[in-house]
């Protein structure tokens, strides 16, 4: 079945009950215009499947989808506006003139294995950590990339600046490479230490683990999220060969986006991509002290709706008293991060709402287990990474 037919059949199951619209964070952030919400997206996707002419006018509606998949959790017919959006993005990206920022990022990934042209390793990285073990700690470079992404979104949140950036990138997409030199210094430092703690925690389980630091290629998650399917396949093939060349058997990931790519997306789409994959806290067993503190936990959507990884929450529960906001589990509320680079102000609105929900729980600290969530929610107040809490409470 071709993509258009699949889209028609998939969206044909919807009866417009609007349950999805009620939980869609972008519906609220985009001032309740239906086309910017889950129901509207499914409606438009169905329309596209019978009338492709409208495709040129709908880009923003689909690229604003967070792919948090909470719509699927509440849909009694099991439809996901996230999945429908990915299909539409695939059609858009293969046939239409795309957002120049997205284009430039994709070009960089394909050519340089990094959205900004090069990967930074953590400051504490030592080449001896590339030790030939078949168990690989793979961060996908996402921690340091957050510091570059923040810089980029700071610039394009200003409409004028965005227009200028687009004009420049249209002429020369490679200019995005400049961002490898611009970063939010504070965030970079924070991510550096978080990564150190993650590595430390991994070492409590796997003494002999291979880590590539600045030599790591990017995970390719953006290719998937932007709907660049063919590029994603090409990139996945590259990653498979790369891991094979290092004789890797097991991949330990440390964030939900990279984890989803390794655990689900590549194995489902790339032949021979069958490395064992686990999130770094899944096998964590060291003793922890219960400190009696109160924690509010923000569940990353990719863990609660896409993959169901609950090890971070369970570990946090063993350290302190954990509260969850009303929107939790399969109906968690996204941090806004996935649209940070395309719709910065709307992304911030979503982060602000979510941070408010967490703050209202009146706990001692707010915790999450995703660098994207962390860097976005942090704009509104203090938030810790689960690795920091574990590190402080591990009985050494």
């Amino acid at each position, binding site marked *: 079945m071709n993509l258009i037919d699949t889209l*028609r*059949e998939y969206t*044909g*199951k919807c*009866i*417009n*009950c*609007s*349950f999805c*619209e*009620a*939980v869609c964070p972008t*519906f*609220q952030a985009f*001032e*309740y*215009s*239906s*086309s910017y919400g889950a*129901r*509207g997206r499914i*409606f*438009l996707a169905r*329309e596209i499947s019978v009338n492709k002419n*409208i495709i040129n*006018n*709908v880009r923003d*509606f689909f690229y604003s989808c967070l792919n948090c998949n909470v719509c699927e959790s*509440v*849909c*009694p*017919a*099991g439809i996901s506006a996230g999945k429908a959006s990915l299909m539409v993005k695939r059609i858009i990206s293969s046939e239409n003139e795309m957002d120049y920022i997205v284009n430039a990022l994709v070009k960089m990934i394909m050519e340089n294995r990094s959205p900004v042209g090069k990967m930074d390793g953590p400051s504490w990285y030592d080449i001896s950590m590339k030790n030939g073990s078949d168990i690989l700690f793979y961060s996908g470079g996402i921690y340091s990339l957050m510091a570059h992404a923040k810089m980029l979104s700071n610039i394009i949140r200003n409409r004028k600046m965005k227009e200028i950036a687009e004009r420049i990138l249209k002429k020369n997409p490679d200019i995005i490479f400049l961002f490898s030199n611009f970063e939010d210094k504070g965030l970079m430092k924070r991510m550096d230490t978080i990564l150190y703690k993650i590595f430390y925690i991994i070492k409590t389980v796997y003494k002999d683990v291979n880590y590539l630091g600045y030599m790591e290629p990017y995970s390719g998650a953006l290719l998937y999220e932007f709907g660049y399917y063919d590029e994603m396949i090409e990139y996945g093939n590259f990653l498979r060969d790369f891991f094979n060349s290092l004789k890797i058997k097991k991949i330990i990931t440390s964030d939900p986006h990279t984890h989803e790519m390794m655990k689900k997306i590549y194995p489902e789409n790339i032949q021979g991509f069958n490395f064992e994959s686990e999130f770094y806290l899944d096998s964590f067993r060291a003793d922890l002290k219960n400190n009696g503190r109160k924690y509010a936990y923000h569940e990353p959507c990719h863990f609660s709706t896409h993959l169901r990884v609950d090890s971070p929450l369970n570990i946090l529960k063993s350290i302190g008293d954990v509260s969850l906001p*009303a929107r939790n589990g399969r109906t968690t509320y996204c941090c806004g991060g996935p649209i940070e680079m395309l719709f910065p102000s709307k992304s911030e609105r979503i982060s602000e709402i979510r941070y408010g929900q967490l703050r209202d729980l009146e706990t001692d600290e707010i915790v999450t287990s995703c660098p994207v969530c962390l860097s976005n929610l942090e704009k509104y107040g203090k938030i810790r990474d689960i690795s920091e809490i574990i590190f402080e409470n591990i009985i050494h």
Partner: protein
Amino acid sequence: MDLVYALREIVGKEYVLDKYEEILPYSRDASIFEGKLPRAVVLPRTSQEISKILRFATENKIPVTVRGGGSSLVGGSVLLEDGIIISMARFDRILEINIENRYVVAEAGVKLDFLNDNLKKYNHFYPPDPASSITATVGGSINTNAGGLRTVMYGATKEWVLGMEVVLPTGEIIQLGGKVLKRALGYDLTSLFIGSEGTLGIITEAILKIAPLPESTGRILSYYEDIENAGRAVSLLKRKGYTPYIAEFMDRIAMDSITKVRGIKFPEKARYLILVDVASTKESLKRMMDEFENVIKETSPLTIKKTIDPVEMDEMYQARKGLYSSQLLERKSPEEYIIIGDVIVPASELPSALKEMDEKIRSSGFRATLFGHIGDGNIHANIFVNPKDRTMMENVFRLLFDLGLIALKHGGSVSSEHGIGLEKKDLIMEEMKFKNSMKNIEIMKNVKGILDPADIMNRGKLI
């Protein structure tokens, strides 16, 4: 003056949608009816803005349809003529929670689940609980007098509305009712707006009664081979003085669709299920559940299952709430839709009325499922249809008509909780004729004429 320009002058550019790709999703609600594309969708934020919009619409005779969650099952929130849709989505704030005086003031666009999430912190709730509560709004549910799962114990929406602010089609903003439990101030205009289906004015905020949450609840699932016995369970409970917190009914097709979507399994032999929730104090829950069970046993169920596990109970509760949409999986093709019958009979009539309806559906040849909020006598028939097949549609409306007549014959009503909208305009007439009350229609039309002199509000619906 250009319509879109005039609307933008009132609410600001951003809040008037007029591009094809933006207004397209507003051409449907959850019913089978396809509305006309609106000339514009307006998203006001204040009553004053609505007042200006409505005054402009009245002066220029522009048809207006109001939309809350857009979950109407009878075409209530789609537009039939060249006009505008006013979305109440930005009226999304809870303005006051007053536990001592047991009320909450909420704007019209507040979703019922959101309201209850907030009330839960105070151990209170707003009882009206349509299965669509995740998306149904305060304004929409008042305008359809929504019922739901808890109606058996708490009644429908009309029992819970103390007052409201309304913008009339001519632009006046009026306050109705108040924050007290009783008033004797002449005609009850608050009630006039309940169930008015957006034909008289726009509710912008409402004062709603709230109640303490029950201390504990338990569930009894009883399975039957025979529909009459299933129907007897609820009437017998009531006759013996018991009021369930929730009492729901579903047939085998409904159970199977839940199994498909949620993985919940039901006994193989069971053709009908009665789900009864018991609310009680912690100390007496077990005793009450035993007493309910003993009564239910008298109706010869195949098996009975009891649970007080909140996770298990919630799973089934959500499954029941999503039942309508789950049944879409039973469709033979994407062209097939579901049309929902919604009638009500007194509890004592349930066994015989259910049997007659079941037979009527079987003899009609339609594929259909029976389920409903049986605790209050509400029966839904979900019928699979292809809206493009005209003969089929004529036949299905004939069937719905016949089901309505069965309800009337048993002392019930043709419309229980979804409203009239576009779907039941014939049936409301039939009920009035049956009750020799055609004068009611004349009164309704006169009221509409006074409040909406230019006849702009939700034209073509209700009457």
